[in-house]
């Protein structure tokens, strides 16, 4: 984004006369719009992908008609339908909080998108505390869920919200420690530095540089499944138990926003995993053949595919088993990884 601002300044004679703040502001706006558009397109694609993948796993085909080839326009049709639906607000619901919750969910994900390094020069901004920023912002999703559950004034929603809050807050800890492992290894919290440190071929990717980082990757992946409320950790949305959990009472656009936030979060955690462990924008070969953003997206999309695959294969964990897994399994292992990587850095 800074370079975009500089580019503006240099190339547009009309811009030369404007104050710097205005140019910056323009650049920010354009970057955000681009990221938003990218996010929306991704979500459109993911929802279609989920339906096709789930269909094929379940021995059926999924959408086939809307738009012609394998129903690619299905999500567009569904989104239009959602927008046209009646916007129902339960009478006993807390109106302001009810309206606020979907935006909070959306904000939590979107604000973190701007720090993802899509390519060497394709990024919005390079915060030197990028990793920390992402961890902080994604915690917003808890607030959104709890507000949604509470404001709906519905016992089932409240139940889903409570379960989700407990789950997300608990799993943040092994996730954070797993994230600390590559940070410790590379010595920087900046997303760009982390990606740059992994250049030079597939064996330079952090995930392959040490057994501890490999395990940390797996822990991060599992914890991120819990963070995004995906099976086997999707108890808060357990359709068969709680109708629809915390978003039972939401219809129309607000429901669409929750949906959007969930699928965007999938890409977000995949993107973070890619940057931290799987090499970021660096390709498999030492020299970069494909452009950085393409490589980044391919890796992230592959991880999203794995997440979708897991959803349609595994049953879901009960809430106490979920907590057990977090506190008694993932947490100790992640501590060991951190210790191991620290020792490794010291000795080698």
């Amino acid at each position, binding site marked *: 984004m800074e370079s975009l601002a500089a580019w503006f300044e240099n190339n547009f004679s009309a811009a030369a006369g404007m104050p710097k703040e205005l140019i910056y502001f323009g650049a920010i706006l354009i970057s955000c719009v681009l990221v938003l558009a990218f996010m929306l397109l991704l979500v459109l694609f993911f929802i279609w992908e989920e339906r096709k993948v789930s269909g094929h796993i379940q021995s059926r085909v999924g959408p086939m008609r809307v738009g012609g080839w394998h129903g690619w326009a299905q999500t567009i049709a569904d989104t239009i339908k959602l927008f046209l639906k009646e916007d129902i607000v339960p009478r006993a619901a807390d109106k302001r909080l009810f309206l606020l919750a979907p935006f909070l969910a959306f904000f939590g994900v979107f604000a973190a998108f701007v720090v993802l390094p899509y390519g060497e020069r394709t990024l919005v901004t390079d915060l030197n505390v990028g990793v920390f920023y992402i961890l902080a912002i994604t915690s917003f999703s808890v607030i959104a869920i709890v507000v949604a559950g509470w404001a709906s004034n519905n016992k089932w929603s409240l139940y889903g919200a409570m379960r989700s809050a407990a789950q997300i807050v608990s799993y943040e800890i092994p996730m954070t420690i797993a994230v600390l492992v590559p940070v410790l290894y590379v010595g920087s919290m900046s997303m760009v530095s982390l990606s740059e440190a992994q250049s030079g071929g597939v064996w330079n990717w952090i995930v392959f540089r040490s057994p501890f980082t490999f395990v940390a990757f797996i822990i991060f992946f599992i914890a991120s499944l819990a963070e995004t409320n995906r*099976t086997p950790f999707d108890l808060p949305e357990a359709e068969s*138990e709680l109708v629809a959990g915390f978003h039972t009472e939401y219809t129309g656009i607000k429901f669409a926003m929750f949906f959007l936030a969930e699928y965007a979060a999938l890409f977000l955690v995949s993107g973070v995993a890619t940057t931290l462990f799987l090499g970021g924008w660096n390709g498999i070969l030492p020299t970069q053949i494909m452009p950085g953003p393409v490589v980044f997206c391919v890796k992230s999309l592959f991880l999203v595919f794995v997440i979708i695959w897991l959803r349609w294969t595994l049953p879901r964990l009960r809430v106490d088993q979920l907590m057990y897994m977090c506190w008694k399994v993932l947490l100790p292992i992640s501590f060991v990884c951190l210790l191991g990587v620290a020792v490794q850095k010291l000795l080698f």
Partner: protein
Amino acid sequence: MMPAGLGSATGCRRHRESAAEYVRDLGGMTMDTVEIEGKLQTEEMLLNMGPQHPSTHGVLRLLLRMDGEIVHDVIPYIGYLHRCKEKIGENVTYQQFTPYTDRLDYLASMNMNLGYVLGVEKLLGLEVPERAQYIRVIMAELNRIASHLVAWGTFGLDMGAFTPFMYGFREREKIMDIFERTCGARLTYNYIRIGGVSRDLPEGMVKQISEFLDYFDPRIPEYHDLLSYNKIFVERTANVGILPLDTAIAYGVTGPCLRASGLKWDLRKDEPYGIYDRFDFDIPVGKGEMGTVGDAWDRYMVRIIEMQQSARIVRQALEGLPEGPITGKVPKMIKGPKDKELYIRTEAPKGEIGFYIVSDGGKTPARLKIRSPSFSNLSVLPVIAKGGMVADMVAIVASLDIVLGEIDR
């Protein structure tokens, strides 16, 4: 003010001021307020599951009294699907009642038909030709497979695994095709009639059924890979909803639930009816392989093995299928014998279905009582779900495999 105590058989609906009053009116139950150290009081929460709910397997209402996630009590409310079958039974003729039996356990209509028809035939002393007997066994066992596939699929669905549901219904489609070709219907068949069956097997049906069995046999190991031994599924179902054997017998639990609690009891072997004594098959019993004897996993596994055994029976029946007529001599207007009654029970997929038929010599029965397996199976739910969590309760209801059609009649 309405007195608490005996439920309101003649009372009226009124607005309850609080959850406590609601519970009191339910028959004297008390609601506890649990005082934790200090001044913090927590109250139990009343939560309603159903009547419309994705995982209550029909229109069933469960009132849960919970403290956080722990279920202190479950009160089932049934009757939402009550269609006055027993009253109808007193007003239609014996033959006219057969389609009504289809709608009892609509997932296993053939077995419902069979139970009723066997009772009427025994009452009247009618002979059924051999070919019809064999066809009845084939159809009943195929329907048992279909019913257990639904149980399997919905169990997986309730546990969050969406795929077994699709696979189970994919297999069911093949069975539905067989039934549709034979009798014209996919769900409520009215095929097994008094005296025999309504139509003969169409051309190529024996081959179609054999092909289905060849297709189905390798599916069971696939199901084991997908769900049965999946660690998450085992964690959710092992040691959950343990039903001790004496509780099962006291509460009249029958069928796979009783066998899962350790008792090797199957009416097809222990009180054989029709020609079941000619076939060779095993009775699976719960062994507590993954947890304790009588837990939800055992109930699940008994059904899977029963499907395999049913396939075995169908193969043997296909081999021994003789030629001949498909209906015996049945009087056009059936008049029951004077002052004769009987109670006949057969092994339906969900358990023991009993028909108590009382005849007073008229064209219609004097009393037709239907003892359904799911009615008794469901009555044990409050006992085994107590102390577990809501998620466990979903697993227990799924493992009991109830159908509201036969509970409410």
